[in-house]
């Protein structure tokens, strides 16, 4: 079977609060091909985590609700599924690595218990075999002396090891799609590189599809095939990874790339993006990036939000300036 494993169409997840409605995810569409990795990039609060939680239907309730769209997994809409069907998908097909590794491990249980749980539900193996499978998983995420480590509590492991255990737990159900929300943000450079390599290796071995959430274009460069850049709840640019690095088109994407120092060359002066991301409670009219944009034209202020337009095959941009007649 070819094509997309997961297809998200016009997803809308809103929060209804005392202070108003927050459109945390506002008409987001993307797809993930089998065995490929999509990077979801953007700064804090732009809706990356809520997009991921929506896919698993784990949006904080009752304030947050998925109010529209489709999430097609191998053609079947997850949003139409019954709760028990959805639970099965979560235990079986899709696994998620949460933003903070400490919150996804329970501090009062040994690693063994936390890891066995997923295996037991998924495989119905016997006790002895579960233990062996747990050891295997610990080995696959390259934890030395797994037999001993299984007896440890989370606080006895280093940050890098904890993250690998979280990875092992996510893989224990043999998922086809792995959603990793900022999997390496809190880690040392070297441990981060190790973990990203590990993900790449496992992906090759198991044919996993992945969604990787990050605010770091370096992570994208390292492991993604495709990128979607989010800003204030919407995708503002989407393209294959080399295309976006070679020809970034949205002013936000460009600005982000120019604002990051490089290890490979000396940069005299970083271009910085003025201002801050807008509050989702009171988005400006027009383009959400207009107040920070270097290329702003009157049209950006008056008209409605610019549409996401395919400027060349596979490269989508949401900006009035990237329309051919505005060049």
């Amino acid at each position, binding site marked *: 079977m070819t094509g997309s494993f997961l297809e998200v169409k016009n997803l809308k997840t809103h929060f209804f609060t005392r202070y108003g409605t927050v459109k945390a995810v506002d008409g987001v569409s993307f797809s993930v091909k089998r065995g490929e990795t999509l990077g979801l990039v953007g700064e804090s609060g732009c809706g990356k985590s809520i997009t991921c939680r929506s896919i698993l239907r784990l949006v904080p309730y009752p304030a947050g609700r998925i109010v529209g769209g489709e999430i097609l997994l191998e053609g079947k809409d997850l949003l139409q599924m019954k709760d028990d069907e959805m639970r099965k998908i979560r235990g079986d097909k899709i696994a998620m690595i949460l933003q903070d590794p400490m919150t996804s491990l329970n501090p009062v249980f040994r690693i063994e218990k936390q890891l066995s749980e997923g295996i037991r539900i998924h495989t119905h193996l016997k006790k002895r075999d579960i233990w062996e499978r747990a050891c295997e998983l610990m080995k696959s995420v390259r934890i030395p002396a797994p037999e001993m480590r299984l007896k440890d509590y989370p606080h006895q492991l280093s940050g890098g090891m904890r993250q690998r255990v979280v990875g092992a737990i996510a893989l224990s159900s043999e998922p086809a799609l792995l959603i990793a929300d900022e999997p390496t943000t809190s880690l040392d450079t*070297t441990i981060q590189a190790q973990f990203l390599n590990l993900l790449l290796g496992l992906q090759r071995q198991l044919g996993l599809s992945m969604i990787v959430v990050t605010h770091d274009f370096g*992570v994208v460069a390292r492991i993604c095939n495709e990128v979607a850049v989010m800003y204030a709840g919407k995708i503002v640019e989407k393209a294959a990874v080399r295309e976006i690095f070679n020809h970034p088109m949205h002013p936000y994407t460009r600005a*982000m790339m120019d*604002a*990051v*120092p*490089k290890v490979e060359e000396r940069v005299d002066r970083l271009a910085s993006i003025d201002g801050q991301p807008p509050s989702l409670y009171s988005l400006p009219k027009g383009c959400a990036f207009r107040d920070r944009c270097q290329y702003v034209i009157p049209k950006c202020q008056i008209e409605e939000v610019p549409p996401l337009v395919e400027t060349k095959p596979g490269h989508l941009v949401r900006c009035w300036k990237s329309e051919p007649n505005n060049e």
Partner: protein
Amino acid sequence: MNDTILEIQGLKKHFPVTSGVLVSRPVGWVRAVDDIGFSIRKGETFALVGESGCGKTTTAKVILLLERPTDGSVKFHGKNIYNLKGKNLRQYRASTQVVLQDPSSSLNPKMRVGSIVAEPLLVNNGASMSSKAVKQRVDEVLLQVGLQPEAARRFPHEFSGGQKQRIALARALSLSPDLIVLDEPVSALDVSIRAQAMNLFKDLQAELGVAYLLIAHDLATVRYMAHEVGVMYLGRLAERSLSEELFTNPLHPYTKALIAATLPSHPDLISGEEVLSGEVPSPLNPPPGCRFHGRCSHVMPVCREVDPLLKEQAKGHFVACHLFE
């Protein structure tokens, strides 16, 4: 011309590891900092890099008089800071300030921004400064970091992360220090705000001639900010050099591995070098010989037995590795 403001020599900080419930006795030592030396020059940035736990913050704490060194010296304009008394000690405290990683937790939430920024002025000058002069100075430093003077009336929670970091910087600047320790100053900030903060640090350095001791684990940040770099591993300096020399001609296998592990700025620039395996061993019992030998891809028999010395390979470029003995 001698522009050195701080000179660190043979610095050691060992923490006792104790056992026993009633009478605790030391059963070993964590060699957090174990014989390092470097100097910081006026108006320049010296960066310490290295993996978590290698001793960067401990070094800074010794410099900030928050930890007493086990051995070695820190000289401020030629005088050991641990022998300073009275006026000289006050002067040293005033001339070294700090900005920490997390702006939300480093600012007192119950104090107005004006009081936060004024605090070092009041502590250092006691009653000798008129409240008008204090207010004037607060307004001045707030403007220097790009905030409006009316920010003084507000509370920290009313500001974004990047603005809070500016407030912390304004506070550090209030006494016109010679040196500011920046411990991971941008890693808690949003990506789009980081460049603003880094540029601000650089601009103020050019304007005021303040020196920075920058602690960071991201090498790209270090290359952008630093004049000189010390690469730390398990309490030691593995390599020390002017920044551009270090990045264009890294010598120590550990430095090379750190550079290789840094995320690329383009998918075509993914490093072919092998990623460093394993983790930093415990500083409780650092390995014999070269501390890096267990993770080094060039390890030779001598590395397991003899501790390599930091030797000058090119002018101002020091490395501690048997490959260069």
